[in-house]
Every structure is written in structure tokens, then in C-alpha cells.
């Protein structure tokens, strides 16, 4: 584990400060990478993508985080008293079990013109002029992937929230009912506060998922068209294993490492406090 995990992490950070012939160049690689349009492309903002891999990851978090968490929570609450809930949960959770490569292919297929069900449904409700291959246009590719990844990931928060709901004693609700509390009030006063530890975990894991997104992008759009759906993890792979610019790749990897650590620390603090 030391050889294959800890050492490479530190070495990545070290390499990010070296030039391609191994000389120490300080922050020069960082400057080059961060100034390139591959990472930030905000000239003329607001505009449609490409906005740069870094911004795309931020957009991913902005849309995917609230959507997947809320739908997971709502599903968990609704399914608590539904007959056949285990079957529904299994169906929704399939997206989490499916390999991300297959997930990416399914997203692309589902959004494809003529053959994909998204366009089929659009035609059905009379929006035929909107049908197109959503992943093939720069202004929609990123968003198609983000919504697709919400579809894949919602099962995660749903299952965790379901597990959390099952631990809340029924007496709490019965006592509140006796006191005349409405169901909405019970949700805000009892359910949500008691689910807080789970919410912290779900938020952390979801942001990590959004930062690590790779397979879906590779098979569905290859970061395109014209880098319009490029993300950090994919850009790192392009730098390292397509252009063989290992130092620049190390810069992106180091940024990802720092971002993930920053995201994880609050959860660890919470865990430490709890024990």
C-alpha cells in the first residue's frame, strides 16, 4: 500500500514542480496549466461551454449535488410506506451497480437522436423541434452528462437515507402527532436533524464522485465536442497518456488531490468528534 498508493501520491506532487527534463521549476507548470483554456475558459462569460475543465467540474457539483441528494431523500421518504419498495429501490440502485463505462454508453444512447428515449419522449409531447443528439453539441453535451450522472447516482443517497430513516424510532413521530404536529413540521423538526450525520456523508461522497467523474465522459463524449464536456480527471488522463506531458498531468492530479482532501476533512472532523 505504501509503494503503490502513498509514495505515488507524494511523488505526483513532486513531479508537478519539475520540468519535463527533471529540473525544478517551481510553480511554472501550475501557471501554464491554470492559464490554459483547457482549465479556465471564461472569456466572454456567461456563455455556453467550453468553459474549461475546472469550471465544468464546478458546474457538475452545482447541478448534480442538490439534484441527486434531494431526489434520493425524497425517494427514501416516499418509499418508506410503499408496497414493493425493495423492488423500486433495486431498480433505482441499478445505476450505482452498473460499471460507469456502461453508464456513459447508456447516457449517450439515451440522448441520441432518433434512437434515444429522451428524444422519443420529446416528440411524444410535441417538442419535436428540440430533438437532437444532446451529447454531440457543445451547448448541451455537459448538461446531458450531468443529468445522466444524476440518474446513475441518485440510488446512493436514496439507500443511505433509507438506512438512516429506518433507525429513527417510530415513537418520535407518534409523540409529535399527539402534540398535533403536521407531517411537514415533523419532517423538518425530526427527520432532517436526525439524518444530519448521513447528510454529511452523502454530501462528501457525492462531491468526491463529481470530482472523480471520468469513465462517463470518456465513452459518451471524449470530453467534446471541442472540450465542451471536459473535466479535470479526463484532462489529467489526456495530458499524461495522450500527450505524454507527465508534469502537466501531475499538476492536474495534484489539484484533484488537494480538492478531495479539502472536501473530506469536514467529514473526518465530524467522525472524530463523534467518537
Amino acid at each position: 500500500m505504501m509503494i503503490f498508493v502513498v509514495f505515488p501520491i507524494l511523488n505526483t506532487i513532486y513531479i508537478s514542480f519539475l520540468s519535463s527534463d527533471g529540473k525544478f521549476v517551481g510553480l511554472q507548470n501550475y501557471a501554464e496549466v491554470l492559464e490554459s483554456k483547457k482549465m479556465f475558459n471564461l472569456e466572454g462569460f456567461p456563455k455556453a461551454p467550453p468553459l474549461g475543465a475546472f469550471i465544468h467540474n464546478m458546474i457538475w457539483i452545482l447541478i448534480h449535488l442538490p439534484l441527486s441528494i434531494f431526489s434520493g431523500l425524497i425517494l427514501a421518504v416516499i418509499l418508506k410506506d410503499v408496497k414493493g419498495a425493495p423492488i423500486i429501490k433495486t431498480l433505482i440502485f441499478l445505476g450505482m451497480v452498473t460499471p460507469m463505462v456502461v453508464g456513459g454508453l447508456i447516457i449517450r444512447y439515451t440522448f441520441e437522436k432518433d434512437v434515444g428515449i429522451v428524444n422519443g419522449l420529446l416528440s411524444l409531447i410535441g417538442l419535436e423541434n428540440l430533438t437532437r443528439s444532446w451529447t454531440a453539441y457543445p451547448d448541451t453535451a455537459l448538461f446531458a452528462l450531468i443529468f445522466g450522472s444524476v440518474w446513475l447516482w441518485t440510488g446512493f443517497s436514496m439507500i443511505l437515507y433509507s438506512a438512516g430513516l429506518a433507525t429513527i424510532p417510530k415513537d418520535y413521530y407518534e409523540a409529535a402527532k399527539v402534540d398535533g404536529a403536521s407531517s411537514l413540521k415533523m419532517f423538518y423538526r425530526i427527520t432532517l436533524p436526525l439524518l444530519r450525520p448521513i447528510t454529511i456523508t452523502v454530501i462528501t461522497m457525492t462531491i468526491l464522485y463529481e470530482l472523480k467523474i471520468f469513465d462517463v465522459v470518456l465513452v459518451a463524449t471524449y470530453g467534446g465536442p471541442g472540450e465542451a464536456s471536459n473535466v479535470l480527471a479526463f484532462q489529467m488522463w489526456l495530458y499524461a497518456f495522450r500527450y505524454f506531458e507527465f508534469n502537466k498531468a501531475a499538476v492536474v492530479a495534484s489539484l484533484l488531490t488537494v480538492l478531495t482532501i479539502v472536501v473530506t476533512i469536514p467529514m473526518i472532523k465530524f467522525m472524530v468528534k463523534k467518537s
Partner: protein
Amino acid sequence: MKIKKSTVMTVIVHLIAWTVALFWILPFMGVFMASIRPYSEIIHGWWDFSSFHPTFDNFIKAWNHRDFPLSRGVINSLIVAVPSTFIPLLVGALAGYAFARFSFPIKNYIFLTVVLLMSLPQQSIAVPLYQMMSKFHLVDTFLGLILVHSAWGLPWIILFMRNFFSALPVEIEEAARVDGASYFKIFYKIVLPMSLPALASVIVLQFMWVWNDLFMALILIYSDPMKLATQRLIYIGKTGYYHLDWSVLSAASVIVMVVPILIFVLLQKYYIKGMVGWTIKG
């Protein structure tokens, strides 16, 4: 009156829940439908049933693909995934036991490091890992990939097993020690048999993780015959630069995803326990 209102609510909730479920699996339905029908039949959408000729052809085409037969990919994936599951399981169970039962000075720091390591993306190690592997001539070998997956899986397995062992009562072990049993004997004869459910969770999650992985395979396996199942999905179904035969590609996708889905459906209890365990209890 009151009963009636709640019945209406129940019906509405059921209706919403099942509608959502139906929409949720539409994309999966699409892939399944595409995989069992000729491509010419689904070019206007798989929901078009004006002609319907179920066939097994797409699966055969994907399985015996000319350049990237999925049959080989499935075998390769198994060759990698089985040892990548059991090596870290053994090491992780021992280490987790040590963390749970013995106290040593820097234990808590090691422990926090383990949690941090779990959260890192594979990209964090990719470049040095690749360079190291080429130095040891382990690029394009299954051994290299197995070692990496084993090391990468260890942090969460250690954490998960530690949490499990911490919850086990120590009295039985203490009694055995009084009777003169060695630590290793206690571990193999008493602790391991009691931990079968936890071990099952680790096996299920780790196997699925390795089977589903693309990135590690992509950076370490390059020659065509060695490529794993997930890697082959990038090539299968291509009929031109842009054009895809969605039927063959769907069949290939179904083959690759049916393995984790079957494991999940059959061993759901262990999967959920494992996932909830390493995320919530942490």
C-alpha cells in the same frame, strides 16, 4: 372521512413511486431492447414495435468480435478481479484486526491517513504509478494491475474490517487465550468464522469495484488481447469514426453489466451492509 383521505394519499404515493421507477429504468430497458433486436429495427427508437424480431445475433457478434472479442475480455477481467479481491481481503482482514485489538502509539494517525486515502481519485497516483510499473516491466501485465488494485482497495477494507472487529465481543477471544491459544490460532479458528458476513461484504464490493474499473486498466493494459472487458466497450460496436451499431454495443454492455448486477441482486444484503458500513459508520 379521515380514512378515505389517507387511502387517496396512499394511492397517490404508490402511483408516484411506481411511475418514477418506470421512468428510471427506461434507459436500461432501451439497452436491453437494443441488444435483442437487429439494429435496422431500432433506428427509429427501441420503443417502435412495428416489426419485432428478437435475436441472439448481437450477443454472438459482441462475444466473438473480430478485433476485440468480449469472450477474451470477460476472461481477462476475471483473471484480474479474483486475485484483486482475495489478496486485499486477506491482508486487510489481518490489518483491520490489528487496528481493532491492539493499541500502538501512532495508531490514530495511521487511521486518519487510511480514511484520507480512501477519498483520493485514481488520478492522484497515475503518473508515478505508470513510471514505476514500466521500470519493473509490469506495464501490460495482469500482475501489475492486480497489485495496484489490491493496494488501492486496502484502505477501505482495513477500515471496514476494523469497524467490524471492534464491534465483536472480545470475551470469547480472551477465554481462548486463557486456554493457551496463540493469536493466529484465535484469529483463524474463532474470529474469521464469526466474520464471514463482513468478509462477504468485502468480496462483493471489491470484486464489483475491480470488475467495473476502467481507469486503472486504461493506464496499465495496452495490447489488444490483454484488454479487459470494460476497455473493450470503447471499441465494440464502432462501424465508422462516428457511427455506432447500438445493437452490438448494447449486447456487449449487457454482458459486462450483468455480472455486477447479478452479484448485487443475489447478494444485496452484503452489498448494502458493506456500502452503508464504510460510509456511515466510518
